[in-house]
């Protein structure tokens, strides 16, 4: 049953159509800069202030940018839109706030949070997916799955040195070898380690559970939330097998290996 939400604050919710953010390419030694396309809804007071915030929870960082007022939007100069507190490859999330200055100063009049920017290095097909793929130095391993990166869960990190061309995530052999394990680790996390995650159907865990349920040919039914861990492991194992079968990963791998030979 859907929950009816009451908006007592009269705050306007900005949408992805109103705000689009793009980061500049990552260059060694220079933090990224962001550009923003901002279309504010009609009816907001012209003197209301507009702020954009970049943030992330871990490692914690936050930057705030003044974009003038609703009636007179003013983009800070490009150099002042450098994300100096985010010098590494981990992209931040963004918030946009429109705040009252006259009737009740500081009150939020319009708001949106957890905006993911477009990143030039990320392939367009990965921008709306349920698996976020990024690169950094992993100090040994070729890949690593990370659930600690708020707003980007789960993130498949690929080692920058192993994949300087950033093509590995599209390599059929890599997909065949790694993606089933990504699915297994993710479902383990959601179904066994932190079952509360799946209760948020709108969150990332809900999206992965829906994906798991949609995989055809799973041989055993999905266990109840309070089922034994052994039963959950069996179901996850069957989902992973069904996923690999449906995508014919064994054949995909064999063909790619033959082409490489």
């Amino acid at each position, binding site marked *: 049953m859907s929950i009816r939400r009451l908006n007592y*604050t009269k*705050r306007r919710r900005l949408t992805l159509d109103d705000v689009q953010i793009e980061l500049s390419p990552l260059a060694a030694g220079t933090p990224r800069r962001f550009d923003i396309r901002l279309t504010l809804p009609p009816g907001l007071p012209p003197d209301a202030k507009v*702020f954009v*915030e970049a*943030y992330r*929870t*871990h*490692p*914690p*960082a*936050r930057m*705030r940018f003044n974009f003038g007022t609703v009636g007179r939007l003013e983009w800070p100069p490009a150099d002042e839109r450098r994300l100096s507190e985010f*010098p*590494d490859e981990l992209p931040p999330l963004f918030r946009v*706030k429109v*705040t009252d200055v006259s009737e009740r100063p*500081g*009150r*939020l009049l319009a708001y949106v949070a957890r905006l993911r920017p477009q990143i030039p290095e990320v392939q367009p097909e990965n921008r709306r997916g349920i698996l976020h793929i990024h690169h950094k130095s992993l100090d040994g391993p070729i890949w690593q799955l*990370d*659930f*600690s990166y*708020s707003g980007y869960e789960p993130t498949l990190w690929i080692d920058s040195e192993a994949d300087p061309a950033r093509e590995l995530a599209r390599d059929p052999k890599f997909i065949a070898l790694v993606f089933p394990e990504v699915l297994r680790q993710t479902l383990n996390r959601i179904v066994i380690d932190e079952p509360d995650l799946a209760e948020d159907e709108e969150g990332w865990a809900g999206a992965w559970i829906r994906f798991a349920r949609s995989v055809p040919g799973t041989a055993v039914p999905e266990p109840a939330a309070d089922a034994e861990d052994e039963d959950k492991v069996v179901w996850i194992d069957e989902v992973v097998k069904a996923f690999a079968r449906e995508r014919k990963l064994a054949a995909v791998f064999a063909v790619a290996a033959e082409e490489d030979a």
Partner: protein
Amino acid sequence: MRLLRRFRDAGLEEFRAYLVRLKENRTLAPPEFLLEGPEFSEPLVPSVRAEPRSFENRFVFAAWLDDTFRAAGAEAPRATDVKFWSWLTLFLFDQVCPAGADGGRKPRAEARYIPDPTRWNRRYRHLLANPYDVYRLHRDNPARAMVVLANPLHRPGELTEQFTSRLEVVQCPGTMALATHLYIDPETGRPRRGASGKKANRFGKLMNQYARTWDLPEINVTDFTRTLPRDFRRFVQAAVEGDQADQAQAG
């Protein structure tokens, strides 16, 4: 002056093993040979040198680390650099896990000494990375975050636990300034009497609610205290009139 370093894999695992053994033998000496041995650690690049010293509280430590790296033209590594922060923990081990009068130490959970960035409910617990993270978030005015920086390194305290576990609160200049205004006595630099984890928990929940309605980063702290519910009255009064008025009322 000592050269700051970071562990290699072998150094990190030896330090982890030491922490396990320390729980069984509380007088076991820290493995200081791990700090310098080239098979166990490596120098930072660029080089950073520091004079080890005693830190009165988390604030003084964070300021020292920030100054040390800035003097070297660098930024301290973030908390995701497990090998650096674990090395620094061993470097300052007498301050993060001090020996008692009997010579024994009381090691707590491993995440306090070796960062665990993969778990949301552990990653803010490191005794050195956490105060530095908070200091860096509020580098334009770090005193506003004193509410989570006032305690000694080895005893972060309940207020710190409650506030640093709420990342939306600890990142926001307005809420941290308000929390420091309410819960820290500016004359002593120490938490006010009665400033408990329970109170901080209530404050955190309230700020999460307020953040849906107000742009908290730029609130006027003095004005905003007037909007707080009755159960904050004692701290508001102490903040406005000083702790003596608060104590007289309590008496």
